[in-house]
């Protein structure tokens, strides 16, 4: 969603690219694409399927943001067992009403740990930042479109 921060430059971008699956288009499956930008860590079974689909369909896969790159804040649950996390969130947390651990079959099963996406698929590029700034995203995409290898450096390189 930080892609939207590039503001009016989105219009320029739209001249060069075509959106496939994205939070903007609400398309459920990823078609054949040149570039797949993935944000967020790998934390449940559905994430895993989506990642595999992206890898199959996209020529270039980019991990966007701290969570995709190293698991980020959600990976701080890795210090605890999944059972403890669920117990604390749904059963014992102060103010819990009608305590129960959600078990609807529609809800994707959580993995025991949160992983960087490159634990599951090959990642071609990394776009660090939490989130990466609009200028960094813009630089990255225009470099890629120009057929160059983007490298984030100087004060554009941020892990926070």
């Amino acid at each position, binding site marked *: 969603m930080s892609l939207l921060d590039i503001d009016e430059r989105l219009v320029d971008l739209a001249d060069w690219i075509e959106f496939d699956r994205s939070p903007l288009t609400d398309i459920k499956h990823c078609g054949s694409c040149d570039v797949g930008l993935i944000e967020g860590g790998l934390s449940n079974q559905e994430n895993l399927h989506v990642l595999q689909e992206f890898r199959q369909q996209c020529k270039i896969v980019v991990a966007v943001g701290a969570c995709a*790159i*190293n698991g980020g804040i959600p990976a701080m649950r890795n210090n605890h067992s999944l059972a403890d996390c669920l117990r604390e969130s749904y059963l014992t947390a102060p103010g819990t009403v009608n305590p129960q651990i959600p078990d609807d079959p529609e809800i994707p099963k959580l993995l025991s740990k949160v992983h960087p996406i490159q*634990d599951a698929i090959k990642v071609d590029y990394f776009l660090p930042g939490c989130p990466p700034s609009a200028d960094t995203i813009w630089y990255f995409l225009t470099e890629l479109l120009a057929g160059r290898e983007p490298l984030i450096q100087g004060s554009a390189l941020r892990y926070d």
Partner: protein
Amino acid sequence: MTQSSNKITIDGRAVCFQPGQTIMEAATEASVYIPHLCHHPDYPPHGSCKVCTVKVDGRYLASCSEKAVDGMEVQNNCKDLKDLRRSITQLLFVDGNHYCPSCERSGNCQLQAIGYALEMQENHYTQLFPTRKVDASHPDIILDPDRCILCGLCVRASEAEGKNLFKIGGRGQNSYLSVCSDSGLLGDSSISVNDKAAQICPVGAILIRGEGFHIPIGERLYDHQQITSVGNCRPRYNHSTSNLTERKKREGPEHSKPINLTTGKHTNGK
């Protein structure tokens, strides 16, 4: 046989040294920056992080612990070393749990700054996700071992202060930082915010409560400047009282001048 002239070269530049000095010490005196994390001029070398690796006659050496020898030709700036140091930094990152967005030292952290300087885009290696426990037992100081890089600076600083508050136990991958108190907790030790040992941590493992956000994220030392040009400076506060409320009142600009950790001198904040 030529007479010894006590000179080495670093990337071709002649640098003098006093007999007994390490390559790092000679470089620092000549204002040549060699990346480092566990080195501190006030304490004996620890040689643990290896970020200071240089190349001498085709061999890789830790410049903080290797003595300068007359005629040495030291390579410090080359692609080969940058790649190697980046890999070493990535190993330090995956060895702990380093989530910069959640860390109050972000922007003032030397590990992060070294990552920036080496253009490290990601961790590369498989993260180990070790399970370590935060020690919040002390009223003024927090120990978060998730971020500890086992540089041993708190150990050495505390030894020099005669308190011996920290030790590194275990071996190799099972090494860990321990607090020397009966319970193993910081709250039962004699550490105080005025101790060097409480202030020296290059990462966010030892934090002093209540001062983490004095300088907002985005305005911190390494947010706009590289560690290669400003070195290991970090704003320091005068902890002449351990009472936090009192301290907050006292903290003015004169207490937040960055101190160059390499020379110990105040810098101009630039």
